[in-house]
């Protein structure tokens, strides 16, 4: 199947008073219809920036230096604002990390959800009377299994618990999404049991509607259970991509190996192995492979030339590392 979202060699920098941060460094990324993709990596390695670039909501000091993003044949970097809004309204949606901040605090849920439904383009919005909107809102809230939707509609965001707020956010996103749901660490700010519920719910709804999803998460278990394909990001590069099961059973890139070993174990003694050091300085990133200062296997070539994301075996397992790309 043809991919409908394609990010090619995307480079994005951020201008700051210290100098320019070269964050995204040629990101390649594709997504097919109803594919579920996970992105993992440390904080600050460009996962969210990539997603923001796709949606066109990068901070005002961001500079797109090269590459392209195409979504259903539209060039998302050159598209007119009006058309972009049309696409955002109908095709794309994003769930944010912190559901408290993602809901406008001065409006009741009824107003927030009602507006989304009203402008979703599903039906004539002249006909969208308060009653109709309320009924639709209640349906949307029921879909995300919120108990007592009537009461929720009459509440302000701060009167709800974190889990309820995230459910409201999901309901708002899914009221519009037709193609792609981007979930940026949707469960990070929730506690473990709620995390599980929210993820299950999201997975069910995504399956039911046949949506594509990009799930960003630090929780590797979540990723393993939810997505078909995993991308690993490090310092603004996609360094490995593979089917989920293969990646977890046979990680190739030294960073991925370290990342998987960093997960704290529930049983056994002591800390997990982890990766020493931290992500590089983006103002003067190390030349060649950006992981080389932390890599045990670093070779001469790693400090000189940047490895490309290439297929290793014939099974669509790609990695950007000189250990495998010898020739």
């Amino acid at each position, binding site marked *: 199947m043809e991919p409908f979202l394609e990010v090619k060699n995307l480079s994005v920098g951020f201008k700051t008073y210290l100098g320019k941060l070269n964050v995204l460094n040629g990101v390649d990324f594709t997504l097919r219809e109803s594919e579920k993709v996970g992105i993992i990596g440390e904080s600050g390695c460009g996962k969210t920036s990539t997603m923001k670039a796709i949606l066109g909501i990068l901070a*005002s000091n961001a500079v797109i230096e090269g590459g392209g993003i195409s979504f259903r044949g539209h060039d998302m970097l050159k598209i007119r604002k009006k058309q972009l809004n049309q696409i*955002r309204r109908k095709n794309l*949606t994003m769930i*944010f990390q912190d559901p408290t901040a993602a809901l406008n605090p001065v409006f009741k849920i009824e107003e927030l959800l009602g507006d989304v439904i009203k402008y979703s383009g599903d039906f004539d919005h002249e006909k969208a009377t308060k009653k109709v909107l309320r009924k639709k809102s209640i349906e949307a809230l029921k879909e995300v299994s919120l108990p007592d939707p009537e009461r929720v509609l009459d509440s302000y965001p*701060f009167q709800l618990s974190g889990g309820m707020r995230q459910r409201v956010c999901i309901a708002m996103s899914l009221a519009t999404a037709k193609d792609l749901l981007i979930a940026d660490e949707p469960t990070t700010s929730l506690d473990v049991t709620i995390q599980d519920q929210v993820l299950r719910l999201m997975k069910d709804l995504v399956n039911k509607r046949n949506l594509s999803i990009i799930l960003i998460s630090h929780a590797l278990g979540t990723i393993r259970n939810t997505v078909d394909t995993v991308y690993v990001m490090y310092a603004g590069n996609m360094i490995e991509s593979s089917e989920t099961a293969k990646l977890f059973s046979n990680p190739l890139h030294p960073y991925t190996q370290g990342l998987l070993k960093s997960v704290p174990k529930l049983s056994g003694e002591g800390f997990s192995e982890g990766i020493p050091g931290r992500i590089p300085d983006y103002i003067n990133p190390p030349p060649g492979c950006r992981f080389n200062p932390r890599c045990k296997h670093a070779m001469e070539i790693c400090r000189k030339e940047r490895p490309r994301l290439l297929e290793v075996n014939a099974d669509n397992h790609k990695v950007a590392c000189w250990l495998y790309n010898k020739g």
Partner: protein
Amino acid sequence: MQLMEKIRTIAKRYDIKRKWFRFSRSPLSVVGLVVVAVVIFLALAAPFITPYPRQAGLQTNLRDKFLPPSSKNLFGTDQLGRDVFTRTIFGFQYSLMMAGVVLLLVVPPGVVLGLIAGYYRGGWVDMAIMRISDVFIAVPPLVLALSIASVLTPSAFNAMMAVSLMWWPWYTRLTYNATSSVRNEYFVQASEVMGENSFRIMFAEILPNCLGSILTKITLDVGWVILLGSALSFVGLGAQPPTPDLGTMVAGGSIFLPGQWWISMFPAVAIIVVILGFNLLGDGIRDIFVEETR
């Protein structure tokens, strides 16, 4: 009965009960509210409740000049025999009108400019708007108002224009700060992702988040505008005699101090009361919103 029902549903929709609870936790706010309500009532009812309403205009009564406060003339009479009590109550009219006109002229453009500058923060629009407002803020308010008022012919209308011209930048700044702190919140990004246009994001998402501080500032400013207006009148650049403006009355009576103290003292106290009332009310309104937005 139907009316009561309607009031009840409106009260419920806007959470009047909780707002009142927060407001009334500080008794001073309630005092402020009462003072403001009384002042507004007196100003509106001035022609009916004052003993000598015609003395607010051109009528004089030289026979009874310089009478000290008595039961007949509560605040005494001035150098032209006019009842100071009557003129003070009419003075409220002018003070409130001054504040009302100035804020009506100042708040909408100030807020809109601040909203635009804050939304396009970092761009040239922001630069242009905020630097221009800085120029206005750099000059001390009274000096600027004085110079403008003195270039124009002194009148109540020109005094209002002068005060308006130096007042809008404060609203621009306030809204600018509130907007730029809300600008990068996730919910604004979420609205962008959902395809809302900039106009809607500015006015329907960001502005409601700033309304609390704007409303508080409006209430507090009523007092300050009245003070500035009175100051202009005091130096003769505001309302001209025989207009019963509080500032003009204080100025007119000041030459008879301390002997006939009542002529300027009562209007002066009236100014203090009005300003204090609006300030206390403003504090109470701030109490409502500070916790609301938490």
